Each structure stands twice: as structure tokens, then as C-alpha cells.
């Protein structure tokens, strides 16, 4: 059964799901959702995702939304195939969930705000809020300092292996490094930089970049 992923391939949250499915060697079909046309707010789509956000998945009769819920489900369902993304014990899993939550609550919003102010608003012909951008940058520097500390003790966020915790950061990190001109935040931090180089060179991520025509 092919997993249908609803959402544009160039949006961060669908990419989180696609990266996971590629790591787990699970076949998928992308069903595009035209965000500029407002398709995600139309009644049909709201039946799939009542908050009007991407992605949503459909796997036979099974439907799910929220990218971090979707990746947890598939990482567990296909535990025995592809890359192990959940660690090898309850304690390792605890670290995976911990850093997944850090990504969701301490990292993601800051990058999202930067992307919105520096990329999305100008595209719409509007001015970004420079004070807000500066404030986000400063907060993100502090967060990345903590990541630098962590990654100086472990190769990956949750331990010695690549897991969902690292994967979850890939889409936003790519925006930070490639699209909003803040690669220095990564490159100036030795361990964060090494980590970014390693995870962004994974076969699955490179496959996704190719599929998305970057």
C-alpha cells in the first residue's frame, strides 16, 4: 500500500514526513496542495486536516495529520526495515522524544518566523519586521549554543545514532542555511556544523532534495 502524503514537496512539514518515509524505505505518493491558491483552507482539505495545515497522510483507511505524529507512527511501524530512527531501548527513545520536543518548541518557531519575515512577506510585496528578525536571531544563537554543547558530547542529538530527533531538524535547517542567508549560524559552530554536514549528506535527504528540484 502506497502512503499518500498531502502537501507541497517544498514545504518544511511535508518534508519532515517524506524524509522519514525515505529513511524507512516506505513507498509514497505526493499529492500536491496549492497553498498559494488556498487549497489547504477549502472544505475538502479541512476534512483531512481540520486546522488547515499540511501535511496529512492517507494509508489505506488510515489517516493522520501532524508531521511529528506521522513520523513517530512510521518509525515504529517499520521498526525492522530501513534506518532505525527510535534508538534501541526505552532510555534511548526517551532522548529521541526529548530532542523532538526541543525541535518543536525551542527551535522550529524561531526559524519559521525568520523564514516568514525574510522570505514569505517580501514575496507578497510586504515589509518584514526587522526588530522581530533581530530578536529571533538572538534567541536562535542562544539555542544553537546549547546544541553546540550537546553535540560536543554526542554525535547526534539523542546519542550515537541518527534518529527522528535529528531528522526533524532537516527541513528548517535547510531553510536557515540555504534560503535566509544565515548559514554562518551553523558554520561558526564546530559541532553543529559537523552534524549538519553529516545529516544533510544522508542518502535519503539527498533523494528528497533531488525530488524537490533544489
Amino acid at each position: 500500500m502506497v502512503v499518500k502524503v498531502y502537501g507541497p514537496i517544498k514545504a518544511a512539514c511535508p518534508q519532515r514526513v517524506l524524509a522519514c518515509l525515505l529513511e524507512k524505505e516506505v513507498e509514497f505518493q505526493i499529492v500536491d496542495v496549492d497553498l498559494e491558491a488556498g487549497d489547504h483552507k477549502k472544505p475538502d482539505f479541512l476534512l483531512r486536516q481540520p486546522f488547515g495545515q499540511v501535511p496529512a497522510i492517507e494509508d489505506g483507511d488510515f489517516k493522520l495529520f501532524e508531521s511529528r505524529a506521522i513520523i513517530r507512527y512510521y518509525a515504529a511501524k517499520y521498526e525492522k526495515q530501513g534506518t532505525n530512527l527510535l534508538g534501541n531501548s526505552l532510555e534511548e527513545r526517551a532522548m529521541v522524544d526529548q530532542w523532538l520536543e526541543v525541535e518543536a518548541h525551542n527551535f522550529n518557531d524561531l526559524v519559521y518566523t525568520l523564514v516568514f519575515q525574510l522570505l514569505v512577506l517580501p514575496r507578497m510585496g510586504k515589509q518584514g519586521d526587522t526588530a522581530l528578525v533581530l530578536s529571533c536571531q538572538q534567541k536562535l544563537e542562544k539555542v544553537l549554543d546549547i546544541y553546540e554543547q550537546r553535540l560536543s558530547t554526542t554525535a547526534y542529538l539523542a546519542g550515537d545514532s541518527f534518529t527522528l530527533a535529528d531528522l526533524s531538524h532537516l527541513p528548517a535547517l535547510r531553510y536557515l542555511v540555504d534560503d535566509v542567508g544565515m548559514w554562518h549560524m551553523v558554520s561558526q559552530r564546530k559541532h553543529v556544523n559537523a552534524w549538519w554536514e553529516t545529516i544533510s549528506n544522508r542518502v535519503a535527504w539527498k533523494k528528497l532534495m533531488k525530488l524537490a528540484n533544489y
Partner: protein
Amino acid sequence: MESVNAGQSRRHFQMATPVKVHGPPLSTAVSRVLACLIEKDVQLQLIPVNMSKGEHKSPDFLKIQPFGQVPAFQDESTSQFESRAICRYVCEKYAEKGNKGLYGSNPLAKASIDQWLEAEGQSFNPPSSVLVFQLAFAPRMKMKQDQSLINQNHDKLAKVLEVYEKRLGESRFLAGDEFSLADLSHLPNTHYLVNATDRGELFTSKKNVGRWWAEISSRDSWKKVVDMQKHSS
């Protein structure tokens, strides 16, 4: 998987050492973990962190929570932070204790719970946290309120609760027929909004959300947490 089962049968014969929760019970994130531990019937020891004295930013505390936030959690095999991660771990580790279905008893149930736990974290928590801080905490801390921020987030939360109203008309609890971690995760912020601000109406004026709130907030576990909050300094 074999080693986990062997570990579980060993645990039945061990004396339980209380797990440690660092942080004030008045903190929404701390109370999320307390509610989960009580639901799971896990003995806990609350370790105070005096935030008004900046203890959460002390070098010692930063060792167990490098972002300087509460709670931090420790048991005999792990040290962990992020309340929703702690809750998931507690449910897996103590699977056979207390409310066994709290994090689902099969993968599909768990997926639905994770979906609504994420919805809580991504859509419900941001606007409700702002309102809790602005309306319940800022006055107590003698801080100036930001009316425009309050209005923006009130509107955001109202829209989110419209989605909940529809969902809770189709399902008794958010993830399905049983109370789960997904519902539990909403208790801390909603409790303040309903009991310590004038925005309780956002919940109580809606038929399904109102019914759901009355049901989840009357659980023994939550009543115990509220009690802990009342008795903390």
C-alpha cells in the same frame, strides 16, 4: 524487545524509588508531568526550583535542563526534560501501572494520541500560553499586560477551539473513546484560563468543549495536581 520484557518482570519485585520532578507545581509544564505520574500511579518526589530567585538558570540546574526551563525529570535509569517527552516515557516505562491505556494500547490508538498531543503543542499551547501568562501571571508579577497580544491570541485560541468543538462532537475525548495523554496535556493551561482569568467562556460556552472540560478536569489525578498547586508557596 526481549530485554524490555525481562526488565518489566524484574521491576514487579523491586521496591519503587520515587521518581524526581524538578520544578514548581504552579508551572503548566510541571503540572502536565505531575498529572501523568498520578494517572500512572507512579510515586514521585517534587523537588522545588525557586524561579523568582533564578534557580532554573543556575549552573546546577542547567546540567539537567540546558535551556533553563522546568520541569526536569529523573528516575533510576534516565534524566530527561520536555514535559510531553517525559509523559511519553513514563507511559512506556510504567506501562503496566495505573491507567494502562493513557498512551494507547495499540499502534493506531497511539497514533491518534500523538496526533492530538502534537495539535496541543503546535496549535493550542501557543495562544493559550500567552493568555495564561498575560492574564493570570503578569498581574501577579506586577508586569504590564499587552492588550494587542491578548486580543490576537484570544482570536487564535477561539479558532482552535472551533476545531475542537467539531471533533468533540464526533468523539468523547480528543483521540478517541478513552481519556488519553492528548486530553491530559490540555489540563494545565485550560485550568488557569477557566479558573484564573475572564476567558473561561471560550471553553464553557461551547457545548462539546464544555462537556469535555468538565469531564477531564474532574478526574482524581487532576484534582490532586490542583491540590499540590494550592499547597505550594
